[in-house]
């Protein structure tokens, strides 16, 4: 063991929770993560404040998170699937009687910070994006634009169910078809999917993946009854007085940088409204097969945190899926060609 990072925090939690806390151990009831441009944040939701240790073994490529003294219980059936370049993954590790969560760091990982938040009790681990090993910026125009396709719903969230199938499966199939068409096109693009199988992902996780991938554009795919295709872009938020107003009560910020980023989270799309409109127009016209078709505006939860041109498409389940995929790919390709 090279470094014991969490000893200070362990003591703080220990003191504030009473002398028996270490014997009770630490029970983790939830694990979440957020990918930001400068760091990845992992949040361990504790049942009760208790001492913990966060260690970084000699190779420096993993972090071990466990209780300090008492038993370490993880009441989560599945750890979230992180792979954002900074953190490569998380898994439960059992070494004899010692249990821990093993956090595997990615090639872009730098320093690590950890701290405790109370009420509800959380242990927050921030893995900063390291500047020394970050990929060097390429010359402008050298990098293929990243197209993020987001097949809607997934896991327990099925979406609408029609005679043609379940929305989550139909949209995954549609996304894979669009990806194939885009790869065959003459325009150089890197296509990334927010999910490649039937798995649940929150809107924030999908947006975070797009943002950390350096998305050039983001297309969320959804289904609706009927044979028409509709395109939506995010509407201006008339009812919200400030960027931080109405945020969910999971404020995690602690230091100034994180706090600022947390406040801005969910407002990223505001800076891309014109480009989203342009992308939406291209796709709406390709889907409708006629000029003059415009995207509709809606307060979409999927798009507000995406830091790129972003649209949500509703493909009618009675539409030919291949034709829908071709039209969407055509609209994307046209937008990319116009912008490069």
């Amino acid at each position, binding site marked *: 063991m090279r470094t014991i990072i969490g000893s200070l925090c362990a003591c703080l939690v220990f003191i504030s929770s009473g002398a028996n806390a270490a014997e009770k151990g630490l029970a983790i009831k939830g694990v979440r993560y957020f990918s930001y441009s400068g760091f990845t944040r992992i949040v361990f939701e504790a049942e009760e404040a208790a001492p913990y240790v966060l260690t970084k073994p000699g190779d420096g490529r993993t972090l071990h998170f466990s209780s300090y003294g008492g038993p370490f219980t993880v009441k989560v059936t599945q750890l979230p699937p992180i792979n954002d370049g900074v953190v490569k993954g998380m898994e439960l590790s059992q070494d004899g009687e010692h249990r821990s969560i093993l956090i595997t760091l990615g090639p872009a990982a730098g320093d690590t910070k950890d701290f405790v938040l109370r009420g509800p009790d959380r242990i927050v681990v921030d893995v900063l994006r390291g500047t020394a090993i970050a990929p060097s910026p390429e010359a402008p125009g050298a990098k293929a634009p990243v197209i993020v396709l987001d097949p809607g719903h997934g896991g327990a969230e099925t979406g609408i169910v029609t005679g043609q199938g379940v929305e989550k499966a139909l949209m995954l199939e549609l996304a894979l078809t669009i990806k194939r068409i885009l790869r065959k096109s003459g325009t150089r693009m890197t296509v990334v999917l927010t999910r490649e199988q039937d798995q649940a992902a929150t809107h924030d996780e999908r947006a975070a993946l797009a943002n950390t991938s350096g998305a050039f554009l983001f297309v969320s795919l*959804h289904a609706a009854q009927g044979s028409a295709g509709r395109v939506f872009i995010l509407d201006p938020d008339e009812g919200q007085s400030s960027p931080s107003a109405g945020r969910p009560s999971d404020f995690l910020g602690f230091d100034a940088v994180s706090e600022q980023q947390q406040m801005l989270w969910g407002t990223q799309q505001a800076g891309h409204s014109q480009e989203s409109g342009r992308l939406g127009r291209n796709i709406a016209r390709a889907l409708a097969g006629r000029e003059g078709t415009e995207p509709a505006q809606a307060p979409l939860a999927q798009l507000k945190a995406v830091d790129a041109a972003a649209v949500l498409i509703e493909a009618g389940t009675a539409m030919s899926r291949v034709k829908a995929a071709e039209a969407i790919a055509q609209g994307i390709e046209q937008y990319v060609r116009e912008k490069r």
Partner: protein
Amino acid sequence: MTIMALVLIVAGGGGYLWFRMAGGPQAVSSVQQEAQTTAPAARPDEPFMATLFVPADGALGNVIVAVKRHPELQLQAREVVAALFAADQGKRASVVNELRLRALYLDASWTVTVDLSAASPNQKEIRASAEDELLAVYALVNTLTQNFPEVRQVRLLMDGRVTQTLAGHIDLSRAYVKRTDLVKNQ
């Protein structure tokens, strides 16, 4: 001298009274002014005529229904929203049909909070397209803001909690104001 002063006071007072009764300019308090500009109060047994915005054919149509009159705005708003959920047209709209009204609150900033829940206790997920979800949200928002001009904005909760969406698309972490472009021209 004293008698002259008394005569002048009485004459002045009489003149002032005559001037007031003859309809001359009067100082009107803001309360009186408000009372004058609002319609005469309806009788308690008179129904409240509510305009409901119901999703139909990709837009919001409006229907006028008579609902029970209540003396308080919060109770009246609840009655109107309950009528929206009970309306035949509302029942045909997929999302509205899958929801029920739990509670409705009006706060001091004239924000109405509508607390909803799934119509069936066994229902784990509300399944709807983004368009249907959008129309359901604005059916509530437009109904409340149209019938009660005092209402500044509307927030929606599910089962008493702030939730991200109803059916996976429309952001419920924000408050909403009336949107007229979704209303069908009739």
